[in-house]
């Protein structure tokens, strides 16, 4: 078990086709088609109630699809559930441990359920997150409980990590450490499926991002591509007058408006043309705002709503 399996290059780590789940008349997920290349961190984004948790619980084999299918590590999650469950690590969105057990007892219990778990590795992970091992889970802060859940999910070096909102309750320092642990996992060829509604953390680690809304996948793309497509705001302070119309004709510029000391333009992709045009006008100062995922993300929602 472990990294040697994980890098089978042809099989997607996760592949769903028309995956749907309904509860009575409520459709929690409809026709999700998703394919995730192994060896990357996939950020699964969407507002609460969009279907993220439903998707994750379907992939973990906790729910049965109403229609469609999901394959995890090349195996159908319904037909090969136990094998899938042996090879993934899972952190639920609201992790609950046994309150009467200490973290060490809890992790040892799960190690005994997963043959081949290296307890030293588990304890090393705990140490990295500064998790106190000999405190009863019931007496722990929310953040420490969450760490128990994280270590439980990662301790057996699963080929695919499925994490539902993993950074909930973690303080920023631990959050950073955790994200670097995810990069380590990715760097040895394993796959991480991470859901979140916190965009900054996804932006910090994910290679690919999928947006889900109202139970359906809205978009999926590489994070760099996504950012490349994004609008940047550039504020130019000019010594002379600002000919807004001239800026609007520059390739890549979507919009321009005059400001007190110059001009503000929204540009997509390369800024070379913009600066070529601006240079003769006497540029005193430039401020650019890189578009973050939030804007892109909101863009998707606005498009969808329109």
């Amino acid at each position: 078990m472990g990294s040697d399996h994980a890098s089978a290059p042809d099989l997607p780590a996760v592949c769903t086709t028309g995956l749907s789940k309904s509860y009575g008349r409520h459709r929690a997920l409809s026709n999700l088609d998703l394919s995730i290349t192994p060896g990357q961190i996939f950020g699964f984004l969407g507002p609460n109630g969009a279907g993220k948790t439903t998707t994750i619980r379907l992939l973990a084999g906790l729910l049965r699809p109403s229609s469609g299918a999901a394959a995890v590590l090349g195996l159908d999650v319904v037909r090969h559930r136990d094998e899938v469950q042996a090879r993934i690590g899972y952190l639920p969105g609201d992790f609950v441990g046994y309150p009467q057990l200490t973290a060490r007892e809890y992790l040892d219990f799960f190690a005994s359920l997963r043959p081949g778990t290296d307890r030293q590795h588990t304890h090393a992970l705990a140490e990295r997150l500064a998790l106190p091992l000999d405190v009863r889970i019931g007496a722990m802060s929310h953040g420490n409980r969450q760490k128990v859940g994280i270590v439980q999910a990662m301790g057996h070096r699963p080929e695919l990590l499925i994490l539902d909102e993993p950074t909930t309750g973690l303080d920023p320092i631990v959050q950073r450490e955790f994200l670097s642990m995810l990069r380590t996992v990715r760097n040895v060829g394993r796959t991480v499926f991470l859901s979140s509604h916190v965009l900054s953390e996804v932006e910090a680690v994910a290679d690919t991002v999928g947006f889900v809304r109202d139970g359906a996948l809205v978009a999926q793309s590489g994070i760099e591509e996504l950012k490349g497509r994004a609008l940047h705001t550039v504020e130019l302070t000019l010594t002379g007058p600002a000919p807004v119309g001239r800026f609007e004709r520059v390739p890549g510029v979507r919009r321009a408006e005059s400001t007190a000391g110059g001009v503000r333009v929204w540009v997509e992709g390369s800024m070379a043309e913009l600066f070529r045009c601006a240079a003769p006008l006497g540029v005193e100062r430039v401020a650019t705002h890189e578009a973050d995922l939030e804007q892109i993300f909101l863009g998707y929602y606005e498009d969808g709503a329109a």
Partner: protein
Amino acid sequence: MSAPVLAKALRDHRRGVAGWSVGLLCLLLLEGALWPSVRDMTGMDELLAGYPEPLQELFDLEAMSTGVGFLNAELFTLVLPALFIVFGISRGAQSVAGEEERGTLELLVVTPMSNTRLLIEKAAGLVAAVLALGAALFIATMLSSALFDLRVPVASGLAGAAALSGLGVEFGCVALAAGAATGRRGVAVVVSAVAAVAAYVLYVAGLLVADVGDWSGWSPFHQALSGGPLGRELPGSSAWLLLGAVAVVAASAPVFARRDVRHV
């Protein structure tokens, strides 16, 4: 072969079994302490002879003049069966449905262990807990007998404890199975409690109504209590209790393996 879920179940039941055992011991000692004064009552036999026949049979009143009969009438025909059933149902409902409602079940499911194996280990833990309580009952009975001169033969003590354990196992497994099939503790408790009451009604009706008599053999109460229960020996029909327990758990396994695990 390691059985981590069973090992944890045993650990979880430990405290409950200890508490209940102390309770049983107190109950048996208290009841035993009454025996010398009951034995010395005059006119007891005349009083009992006046009771309707079905009632005499129900509480084994005929034998009230012996220590064994006294314990049967006072504890082993109603109070102790009820206690063992309550213990079995509460533990059984807790085993799968309780974990599911608290949110700890889903991580147990997302392991290499199959749901069926999980259910079997949970059932084994439940059976072990009830048997441990049965052992405590046996010890309490013999201790009370020795202290207050009830003269309960060891074989009778064993038969009584085994019969009541059988009832606890049977209805505990009904609760476990109903909880595994539905994921709801409330449903597990209601289903198993209704089953227990229905079984008791069938048993009592069998004693009162001649036409029902043939059917009462189906009642777990009949299977467990018809021998005394603190009696000569364990009736062969008590094997049905175990068979019934195995059957309900086996019936719930495919449902548990296929249904959605509920989200808290």
